[in-house]
């Protein structure tokens, strides 16, 4: 067995003999997986919103000549929230004690204002003061948007019936009264049958233009209703984006925290045990000592990362949350976990070499890990220098690697690029740690 493997085996044995540390190592990924599972299920959950009907909405409403089933229309529109019908008092009580996150009230006179088509009727929204209130507001806005779209379609269809009547003529109704309209086409026919004079020619020109203009009314009405329409491009990913995102952050965060701490602490512990001199006199080179800690970090990162991925996958399977299951991408994850663990481990070894004592090294690692993570969370488009700094550290590359591995349909380019970054950073930090390891001999 080579010397690095011998030291790695020793370190694993030492880990097994440290029940508290081992317990934390086992509990940590489970806790992280549970938390991210909750976050993921929260992302797909429907908040409970009270629906207070003070207008006594009828079962059906006819608007713009179209019949709306009120209950069905609300169900159709409320895809993102769970609406529950409550009395005003009960809704207030439940909003106060947090059982509903918002109250949507249909005030008296809502339907009559809507039918009048003179001014817009208003829905009232009351939100809880919790952290998800902004999300609920967005979802209620989406609900109102969806209702407006349905009404718009009905109004446009109603208006188009009048346009058709004007174009082709026939029987119809206006404000409830039956009407008969000649229509432009028939008017053109009648005019052609009349003696042709400059004045009939003018009228025929006008009717020709009017017919052309009215023929485009459908598109014109639609584009006036939606000057800009948002068309969603086909999804490029294999899973639900939020699920892949939270998994990527959870994996990178866990690995960065534990691998950094473990590599820094275990290298400095060699000096605390007074064995560095004994090893360095020809048994194990300082470089081999450093790489054994990198290997330890990579091994622990692999074990913990797989545990997180498996636990997360099980949680979301049990919870019935679709998308984000890591099963098919486990081989790619294995590569990423080893590379990320090794790269972070090399940085940890550098910290351990500089700190020299296990307690100091652990403290330094804890203090260093927070800025590394926060730097990685700052969008580089917003603060470019933070992005540059973050690029020089393994966390951001680990996140991108895992995100691409879990989400992208074709992850190879991104995975290769980020993998090379992790290898390069690991080599640089490992080399610096080797230089710094001389301090362990003093």
């Amino acid at each position, binding site marked *: *067995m080579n*010397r690095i493997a*011998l030291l790695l085996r*020793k370190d694993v*044995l*030492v880990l097994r*003999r*440290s029940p508290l540390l081992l317990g934390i190592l086992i509990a940590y990924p489970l806790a992280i997986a549970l938390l991210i599972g909750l976050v993921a299920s929260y992302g797909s959950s429907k908040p409970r919103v009270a629906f207070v009907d003070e207008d006594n909405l009828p079962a059906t409403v006819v608007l713009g000549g179209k019949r709306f089933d009120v209950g069905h229309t609300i169900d159709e529109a409320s895809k993102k929230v769970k609406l529950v019908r409550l009395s005003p008092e009960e809704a207030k009580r439940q909003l106060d004690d947090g059982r509903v996150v918002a109250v949507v009230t249909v005030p008296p006179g809502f339907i009559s204002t809507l039918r009048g088509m003179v001014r817009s009727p208003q829905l009232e929204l009351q939100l809880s003061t919790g952290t998800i209130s902004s999300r609920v507001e967005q979802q209620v806005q989406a609900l109102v948007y969806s209702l407006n779209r349905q009404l718009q379609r009905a109004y446009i269809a109603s208006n188009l019936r009048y346009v058709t009547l004007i174009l082709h003529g026939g029987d119809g109704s206006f404000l409830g009264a039956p009407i008969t309209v000649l229509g432009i086409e028939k008017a053109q026919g009648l005019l052609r049958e009349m003696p042709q004079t400059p004045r009939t020619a003018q009228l025929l020109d006008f009717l020709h233009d009017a017919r052309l203009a009215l023929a485009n009314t459908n598109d014109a009405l639609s584009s006036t209703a939606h000057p800009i329409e948002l068309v969603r491009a086909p999804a490029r990913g294999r899973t639900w984006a939020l699920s892949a995102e939270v998994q990527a952050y959870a994996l990178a965060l866990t690995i960065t925290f534990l691998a950094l701490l473990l590599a820094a602490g275990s290298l400095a512990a060699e000096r605390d*045990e*007074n*064995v*560095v*001199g*004994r*090893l*360095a*006199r*020809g*048994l*194990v080179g300082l470089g081999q000592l450093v790489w054994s800690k990198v290997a330890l970090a990579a091994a622990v990162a692999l074990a913990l990362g797989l545990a997180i991925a498996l636990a997360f996958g099980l949680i979301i399977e049990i919870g019935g949350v679709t998308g984000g299951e890591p099963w098919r991408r486990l081989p790619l994850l294995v590569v990423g976990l080893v590379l990320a663990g090794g790269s972070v481990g090399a940085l940890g070894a550098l910290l351990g070499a500089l700190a020299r004592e296990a307690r100091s090294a652990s403290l330094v690692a804890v203090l260093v890990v927070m800025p590394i993570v926060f730097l990685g969370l700052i969008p580089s488009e917003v603060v470019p220098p933070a992005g540059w700094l973050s690029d020089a550290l393994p966390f951001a590359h680990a996140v991108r690697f895992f995100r691409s591995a879990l989400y992208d349909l074709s992850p190879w380019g991104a995975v290769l690029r980020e993998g090379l970054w992790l290898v390069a950073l690991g080599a640089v930090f490992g080399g610096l740690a080797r230089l710094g390891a001389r301090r362990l*001999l*003093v």
Partner: protein
Amino acid sequence: MTHSTPLLAARGAGRRFGQTSALEPVDLEVWDGDALALVGPNGAGKSTLLALLAGALRASSGKVERRKGTRVGWAPQRPAQYGRLSARENLELFARLEGEHDPRAAAERLLEAFELPGKAAPSANLSVGNRQRLNLAISLLGDPQVLLLDEPTAALDPDQRRRLWERVAALRARGGAVVFATQNLEEVERMASRVAALREGRLVFAGTSDEYDRAHVESLSA
């Protein structure tokens, strides 16, 4: 068999830690059968010189030479072993690193020889004396020709001291050598064939133990 080169030699070997000189350049040779005692007050540089000879520290100036094929065992003053591993696991690990053919048998032999507990208790839980025995046992792995021992008997009981010196005598009889740092003049008188005295990082005396005795008596009577 007579050799033309010493087993181990310091050639102007010195060591600085930053601005502080722990050991001024020293010239010293260790020959077959030698028992060289390093004496001097605390902080004189004895441990630094032993670490340089062992190869655990690099010399800031000069160099340390080792006869080709010479194996060196080193027991530092503070035991150097893994506290979370048992005595047996420590011995097996270092036996593998030293390249012993049968690491388990080597560990078993030394556990028995030093009367160390073979159970799985972490070595950090051993008594001070037992930790020192384990420290010495590890230094004997790999069948060294030269033993470098830093205050080896400080924590040993009389019986273990006697056994240690018996092992040293056997090693010298086989043509090996020992260099030991000590504060115990009785050990110097009984065990050393040569003495090197250090003071404030300088080598102030090097000679036979008889010469050292005479010089010591003269310095006391002066």
